[in-house]
């Protein structure tokens, strides 16, 4: 039997243990012992001595040193070694006065006979997803949640197990309390200090939330299988790209900066960037190669190549700000080959090294309107049509150099859609990524950066 789909794992990179149990079945009646640094029960074949009654058994008998309790049920037991023992991660599903009954991917006891000299741990957080005699990542299933506490962290996390579309695997960082939607420095930072990739996601169906990656000798977040949804993640100062995906996925509220090549590299896939921020990278803020791309409410600024670059894509660029990307041949948006279904609405292309938008296709039939072109060193558009509601007004950014791209009054309510078809509804949307908040308006719950 496999582990239950309701297991919740706890990672504490600095204070946990590599071979702690690290998990608890949230549907079980016992007491969660994973949300503590130290193991609750350390079976060391000295102070606590255990055995199993025979071959292929899932019963662990306490011969000395510990009396099982009902509170143990639901916790994960990490078996590390023993005669005829299969090392692995097992859920305690029942107990009596002298035994635990466990379940896992294999039987606790092998076919060779009764188990003895057992060692392992129940309870306590783990130090990592990909560390220990049996890794947490190798046991992940759809429905599992992995919480990672904000502690000093340096691990090559490889997520190769897969969830399903209706039962994703969630990997979520937190500051002090699970589910606190950690932001800024409260998020766990996987600092590789020039070692290999912090995060490689080769399994399918993940939600990855509130994690940071830095100083990889390559990519910060590498995604090769999908779908994957990244929320509130941050990747900076890596030796190549911040985020790379060759699979379908979406990025919400993610930030890439100071990476040595590209901020977001979106391969031959369908990908969405929503509310993301890519800036100060050595190459392009975001690249797309083939497939459907949608970028909405994103900022691409001060990159040392184009803000956004696409080849053979079907891109929808909506309410984005592309500003101050630096270089003699650097554009806000550069397209080398594209499909005529490109839609470009409500964007600001300002202060870029060359053009606001530039296509190598003379006949590009993109639908572009309600865009602002201001202060670009070249021309506003090369091979893009003029939209009937385009503007050249100063966007009036609140504080560009400080990274505040809140727009001024000239952008207020100037965006699409305006009057909807039928004439019965009228919408008011500002141009650019950052919408104005008017007095008396709704209250935003917080941010992801």
């Amino acid at each position, binding site marked *: 039997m496999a582990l239950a789909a309701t297991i919740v794992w706890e990672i504490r990179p600095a204070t946990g243990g590599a071979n702690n149990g690290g998990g608890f079945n949230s549907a079980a009646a016992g007491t969660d012992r994973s949300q503590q640094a130290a193991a609750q029960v350390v079976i060391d074949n000295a102070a606590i001595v255990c055995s199993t009654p025979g071959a292929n058994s899932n019963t662990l008998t306490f011969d000395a040193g510990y009396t099982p309790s009902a509170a143990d049920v639901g916790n994960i037991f990490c078996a590390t070694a023993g005669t005829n023992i299969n090392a692995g991660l097992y859920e305690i599903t029942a107990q009596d006065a002298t035994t635990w009954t466990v379940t896992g991917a294999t039987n606790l006891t092998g076919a060779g006979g009764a188990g003895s000299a057992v060692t392992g741990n129940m309870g306590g957080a783990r130090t990592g997803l990909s560390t220990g005699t049996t890794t947490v990542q190798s046991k992940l299933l759809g429905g599992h949640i992995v919480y990672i506490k904000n502690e000093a962290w340096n691990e090559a996390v490889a997520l190769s197990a897969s969830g399903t579309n209706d039962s994703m695997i969630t990997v979520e960082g937190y500051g002090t309390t699970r589910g606190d939607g950690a932001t800024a420095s409260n998020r766990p930072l996987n*600092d590789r*200090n*020039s070692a290999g990739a912090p995060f490689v996601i080769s399994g399918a169906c993940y939600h990855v939330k509130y994690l940071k990656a*830095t*100083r990889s*000798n*390559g990519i910060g977040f590498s995604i090769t299988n999908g779908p994957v949804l990244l929320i509130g993640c941050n990747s*900076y*100062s*890596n*030796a*190549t790209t911040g985020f790379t995906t060759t699979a379908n996925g979406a990025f919400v509220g993610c930030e890439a*900066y*100071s*990476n*040595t*090549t590209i901020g977001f590299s979106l391969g031959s896939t369908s990908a969405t960037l929503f509310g993301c921020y890519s*800036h*100060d*990278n*050595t*190459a392009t803020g975001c*690249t797309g*190669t083939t497939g459907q791309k949608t970028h909405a409410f994103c900022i691409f600024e*001060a*990159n*040392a190549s184009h803000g956004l670059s696409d*080849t053979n894509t079907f891109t929808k660029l909506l309410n984005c700000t592309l500003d*101050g*990307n*630096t*270089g*003699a*041949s*650097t554009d806000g948006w550069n397209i*080398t080959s594209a499909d005529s279904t490109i839609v470009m609405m409500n964007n600001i292309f300002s*202060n*870029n*090294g*060359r053009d606001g938008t530039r296509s190598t296709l003379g006949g590009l039939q993109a639908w572009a309107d309600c865009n602002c072109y201001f202060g670009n*060193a*070249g021309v506003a558009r090369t091979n893009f049509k003029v939209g009937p509601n385009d503007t050249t007004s100063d966007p009036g950014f609140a504080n*560009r*150099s*400080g990274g505040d791209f809140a727009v001024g009054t000239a952008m207020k309510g100037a965006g699409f859609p305006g009057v909807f078809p039928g004439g019965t509804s009228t919408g008011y949307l500002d141009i650019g990524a950052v919408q104005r908040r008017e007095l008396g308006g709704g209250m935003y719950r917080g941010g992801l950066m």
Partner: protein
Amino acid sequence: MKPLVTATDKPDDYYNEYFRGAVAFDPSWRNYSYHAVTVPDGTVVENCNFAQAEPKTEAITGENLVFRNCNLSNVAVHPSWTLEGCLTAQSYIVPDADGNDSRQFVCATPDEFDDKKPEHARPVEGKDTLAGGVEVVE
């Protein structure tokens, strides 16, 4: 602040997009990729990108500088500097499968660099040798 390089405005010693010329440090700008930068002695620099095209480039002038969470990739590090959480990887620009620039990691710090250049490293010093979609503007 305007970009450090545009189609119409470049440092006097701008050579190409990999060697963009010398500029002064301005706290309101954070991306100095491919530039030589003069930073006042004793400055604390945070969250800036100074990445260079080739390993051990003498890109930053200044003593007793403190760098926090900066990208110092391919930058030669002065012994008087203090580095906190900075990337100091040395790498060469190489073409990826699509012909775009990527990087081949060589070593973690300038001190470990042994001057061995990968055969497929993209030549970046001469404007006539650039290739693979990199536009050169004189």
